[in-house]
């Protein structure tokens, strides 16, 4: 089957191995196209995509916008800071107004869990989740998976360790669903105030409080961005202690495999979750992630749009 089972992309929990495989395989093709002198394909010509961002975003929105333009879609950006939302318009009214402008695909980021599903329930557009609260950020996880496959050949049987603020991380949640579906073993590690307190429904992954043990068998390590607000909220005493306990330093890297790859969803707090020399060092694949982000988002948009003009891809 060469089409997706899902109609929208809300998250990776419950998404089949078939669908993830299809997205990653298409992303690999788009990755090749991105290396060509002419990087544009006509796959979404005539379609309109709106990037509906209710939260600040630079790289994810840019990545989506670039993916949409590479697919020849018409793109509209809609940020809550300069929209009617500020004037009290409800979410569903905002969507219906945008939809009335004959939009085909909505890429949405919002602070609320489940907003993409809510929008899908209330519109006819194809909805792509670009991050909803601490719930999911599926395209980030897909680009992480693509990067692991690109660098390590496969996800099957690989050990992926995610370190940091797991509790508030939509990236971690999407990765733990997606990567385990694809056969990777995921280990999660972070300060006790920043990991979920109830893991009964996420017991297919390993929770390891000792960071050295967490990285010992890792083939890939994903360091999560630490929000400064966590200190204000008394979840952590200081950036310094966090860096010394959970930061990816050379000392910690010495405990890992020689060929481990280091990933980060960005933007990096250099010297906090990741030391500068590691971020820029030989193990780092962070810029590959950024490139893969465009390819993955092209694949998602292309496949959800129904694979139209497939021959042009």
């Amino acid at each position: 089957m060469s089409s997706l089972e899902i109609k929208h992309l809300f998250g990776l929990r419950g998404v089949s191995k078939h669908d993830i495989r299809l997205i990653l395989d298409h992303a690999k093709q788009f990755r090749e196209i991105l290396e060509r002198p002419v990087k544009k394909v006509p796959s979404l010509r005539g379609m309109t995509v709106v990037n509906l961002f209710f939260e600040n975003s630079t790289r994810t929105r840019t990545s989506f916008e670039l993916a949409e333009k590479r697919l020849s879609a018409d793109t509209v950006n809609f940020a809550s800071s300069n929209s009617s939302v500020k004037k009290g318009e409800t979410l569903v009214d905002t969507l219906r107004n945008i939809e009335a402008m004959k939009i085909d695909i909505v890429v949405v980021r919002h602070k609320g869990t489940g907003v993409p599903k809510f929008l899908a329930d209330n519109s006819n557009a194809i909805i792509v989740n670009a991050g909803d609260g601490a719930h999911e950020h599926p395209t980030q996880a897909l680009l992480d998976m693509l990067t692991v496959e690109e660098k390590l050949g496969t996800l099957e049987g690989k050990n992926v360790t995610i370190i940091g603020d797991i509790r508030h991380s939509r990236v971690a949640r999407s990765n733990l669903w997606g990567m385990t579906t694809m056969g990777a073993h995921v280990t999660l590690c972070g300060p006790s105030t920043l990991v979920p307190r109830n893991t009964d429904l996420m017991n297919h992954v390993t929770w390891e409080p000792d960071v050295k043990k967490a990285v010992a068998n890792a083939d890939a390590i994903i360091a999560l961005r630490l929000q400064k607000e966590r200190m204000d909220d008394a979840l952590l005493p200081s950036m310094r202690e966090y860096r010394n306990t959970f930061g990816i330093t050379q000392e910690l890297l010495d405990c890992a495999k020689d060929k481990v790859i280091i990933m980060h969803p960005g933007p990096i707090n250099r010297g906090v979750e990741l030391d500068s020399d590691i971020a820029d060092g030989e193990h780092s694949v962070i810029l590959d992630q950024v490139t893969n982000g465009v390819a993955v988002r092209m694949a998602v948009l292309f496949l959800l749009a129904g694979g139209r003009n497939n021959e042009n891809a």
Partner: protein
Amino acid sequence: MKMRSLSDISNVVLKNAMFWNGQKFEPRDEVCLHVLNGIVPRDESFVRGDEFDCKGALVIPALFGLGLDFMEPLRDDVYKYSDGIDAMRKGGFYGGLYESSANPIDDADKLTATANRFKMFNTIVGEFEVKFLGAYSKGFGTDSLAEMMELAEAGVVGFGDGNAAIPHSRFLRLAMEYGKMTGKRFFFQPMDKTLRKSGCVHEGAYSDMLGMKGIPRIAETVAAYTVLETARFLQVPVHFKQVTCGETLELIRSARKKGIDVTCDVGLYHLLLDDSCLETLDSAYHILPPIRSAADRDALWQGIVDGTVDAISVNHTPVLRQDTVVNFEDSVPGALSLEIALPAIWNKLVSKVGEARAIELLSTAPARLASAAPAQNNIVVFAPDRPHVVVESDFAGHVCNSPLMGKTLPSSILATYINSVWTEM
């Protein structure tokens, strides 16, 4: 819905009904509502009237609702006191304990104004047995005490918190210390606001899986313990509204052993649902205090069975449609329940505790907690084995916020006879 007041009709005669006699249901071929209502028949023609064939349905005492809040004066174009009264009649409630969270009854004038609004509608349809909780602080704040002595004299049956989190410990002590002079009970929804913070769902496996901000059980137990210790110290009677977890029930059991006068209720939806409903991300399940885990729900049922729980509350809270048609975390919490409470819970309740205790939990005990009169001749004609699909038109007013919308309830209300008004559904 067909509604007729006693003055509009000659009479209604119920045929083939199973009447509750105070101990059990017994078959009655024919019961005249006039006679039930204490009106002495003048002659045979007076007794005869429209017949209503109950077809073996149960006739049970009408219910008393703990936790009424019709949200006036927020949007009286959407939901009015009269809608609330309609909801009570539809659901078979002859009365209820009203506590406005939007408009705190913190002085005697406000009590009079609120009571008058009820009376204004009641004059049309008879007198519902509505009792009021006063606020123990001005505006449910933590700076100034409400005029509790005057409120008590004006008729409040107790003092409440408007379902806000409990205040800081010094203010709590002062409020209870002052309010003790009234001899009234304090009604708290035990919630520590710092532990709740911005939580909107039960902190558990589902909230963590979905990345939603949770409210831990200790937000309830810490608050409950603080209240109980203050109640023990001051010898003031307290009531806990909508207990959600077994740990709080354990605190209550322990407190009673120490001689603390503490009563409690559990909410309808907390007995019917568990937090697996969060997977739907449907804002209809946004209820505060939050729907907790299946283990908590089972512990509440255990509390019902062993008698720790005094009553089942309805916590009827209309929410404007535009406040529910949003994503879960941005929606306004609350659920309607008056119209569907009985058919939603009767069968399960009876299977756990039997018919007599079920009636006690839904009618007699809530009325007693609110110092209200018993149901007397107000009745509900109820078919426990006739399923009913919940639809918008089941609800009064221009709202329909219920997690049971579209669901099939195992039972149906066929008719109610409340305050001399016969209503067929």
